[in-house]
């Protein structure tokens, strides 16, 4: 799996002083995230919860100071981790997660940043030995009309009906799904779907949105997708997360005996 072009580059514990840390590079968009996890720590009295650990997620932007977008990203990660971490194991403590965006093609794009941030955070939580109910893996899928002529998508394109076969011989106008799109592909995409599943196949997070370009108004009528198309896509996402995602985590942690 590690030799596959889709496998992300993962380096564990790049920060020796933190309880757990991880650097994650997305294979296509080269989005690089560095996270550190510290905990259980002493908690500020105002944040203390009587029977649970407090989780704090701080997302630091690659450019400039943190703004509204970073607050939203950290609130998304926070709500996902809230259900993954067994917070009742360390009541009245703080689990602090800091995620630094090191490199990104587009520092404001939520869909491009969310998947690397989540995967990197989950890996560093495992390294830090924070008790978790299960592990999750996130995948970013983009629906593109006619992926022909886009460079660097080999092996990542598939059709929904045709299963996971290599879809490079598709027609020009046909809708295909691209895994881990970079910003160039995303700008041509019709919709973007960030799906996070747990190892058991439960849905942890869905962040799906229409992202076609246009000048708005009546030209946007009729955009969007049918719910049945989404369900097919979710099945595919579940397969990727539960099989390949878990395999990637297992490979990365192979000699650490976390599993």
């Amino acid at each position: 799996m590690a030799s596959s072009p889709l496998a992300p580059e993962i380096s564990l514990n790049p920060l020796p002083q933190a309880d757990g840390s991880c650097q994650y590079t997305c294979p296509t968009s080269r989005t690089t995230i560095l996270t550190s996890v510290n905990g259980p720590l002493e908690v500020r009295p105002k944040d203390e919860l009587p029977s649970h650990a407090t989780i704090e997620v701080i997302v630091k932007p690659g450019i400039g100071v943190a703004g509204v977008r970073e607050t939203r990203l950290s609130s998304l990660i926070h709500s996902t981790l809230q259900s993954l971490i067994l917070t009742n194991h360390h009541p009245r403590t703080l689990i602090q997660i800091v995620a630094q965006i090191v490199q990104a093609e587009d520092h404001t794009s939520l869909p491009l940043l969310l998947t690397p941030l989540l995967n990197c955070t989950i890996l560093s939580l495992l390294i830090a030995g924070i008790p978790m109910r299960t592990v999750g893996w996130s995948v970013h899928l983009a629906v593109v009309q006619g992926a022909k002529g886009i460079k660097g998508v080999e092996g990542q394109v598939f059709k929904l009906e045709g299963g996971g076969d290599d879809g490079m011989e598709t027609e020009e106008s046909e809708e295909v799904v691209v895994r881990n799109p970079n910003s160039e592909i995303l700008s041509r995409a019709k919709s973007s779907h960030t799906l996070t599943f747990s190892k058991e196949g439960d849905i942890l997070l869905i962040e799906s949105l229409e992202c076609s370009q246009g000048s708005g108004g009546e030209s946007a009528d009729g955009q969007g997708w049918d719910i049945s198309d989404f369900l097919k896509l979710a099945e595919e996402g579940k397969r990727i997360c539960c099989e390949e995602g878990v395999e990637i985590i297992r490979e990365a942690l192979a000699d650490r005996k976390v599993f």
Partner: protein
Amino acid sequence: MPTLIRQPNSGERQPPPLTFSTSLFRQISPALYLQRHLLNNPPTRPNGRNPSQCRDFTLTTNSLSHAHGSAVVRSGDTAVVCGIRGEILTIAPGDDPSRFESYNGSPTSAIHACGSRGAGGASWGGLVVPNVELSTGCSKKYPLGPPGGLAQTLSDQLHELVNVTKLVSLDSLRIYDGDNDTTSKMKIKGYWSLYIDVLCISLDGNILDAAWYAIVAALKSSKLPFASWNQIEERVFCDPSRYHPISLRQSLPFTTTFALVPVPASAGGEVGEVALLLNDPDSYEEDEACEILTILSTTDLGTAQGDFSQLSLGKLRTRVEKIEKRGGWKLGISQIEDCTQLAASKAARYIHTLAKEQLTPM
């Protein structure tokens, strides 16, 4: 009605059962209180609604006289005021207007990427700028002060909703050179930039739906003055007597939010938990919910538009434009399908109320 918490049968000496009033039970054990209500047959929420029922809402448009458009939405005990103010953004000779010409256009350089709300709203596709204010004393959870996490997240979510839905036609925001009558020679001299301010005056759950409905209604009712470039004075002039509406999409998108609450269920002798979907949660239910699902969808009402009584929900064509689900792990994929049905029926009510409001003379 006194509520009884049963003690486990411990044998010979049974302590007296612990009883207290319903209102106290509601305060000290919200999760259990909510569960007991939902275990009734049929399941009923503490506020008397059934799980798929949303709150009644009222809409008033154009109640603020100084704004270009405004709306007040009240849904249960959640009330928001939305005001829209248009400001003129002139294009300096060296500026490239192309970055305003498309929603979701990718940034051309790293300078643009520094913040989505650059100077004067001058960012790509960022002519429509929503902002949410929660520090109005609307709820004791959000004290006065700088905007907290929720207010920032909401503002960003609403900005994303504007971009995802491409609600406002960029056509109606352009300001042209006034003296040129031929459309081919018309040059874009500026843009209307719309500042949307949403003030929450009372918060009882599900602020996103209320805020988005207020924004749609306010945009639908707003009127901008005719503006054109005056070549002699070299600035944009507004005609105070002529107004034009902002053109929006034909099929309006609406959000519907659900909260998932875990409820113990026994299936085949095995005791487990299922997640029960609660449409349009209030803040009491939101606090206990393990996950929140929001669906943004458009519903094609066809000929039945405006006539609420003749709708048959099975026939509605619904297209989803955004799904957001956060927290928890109990949502089943099949439940999303049921939610889109409920979203369609709610959208039909939204459209009906909006159409009725627009018909009443102001």
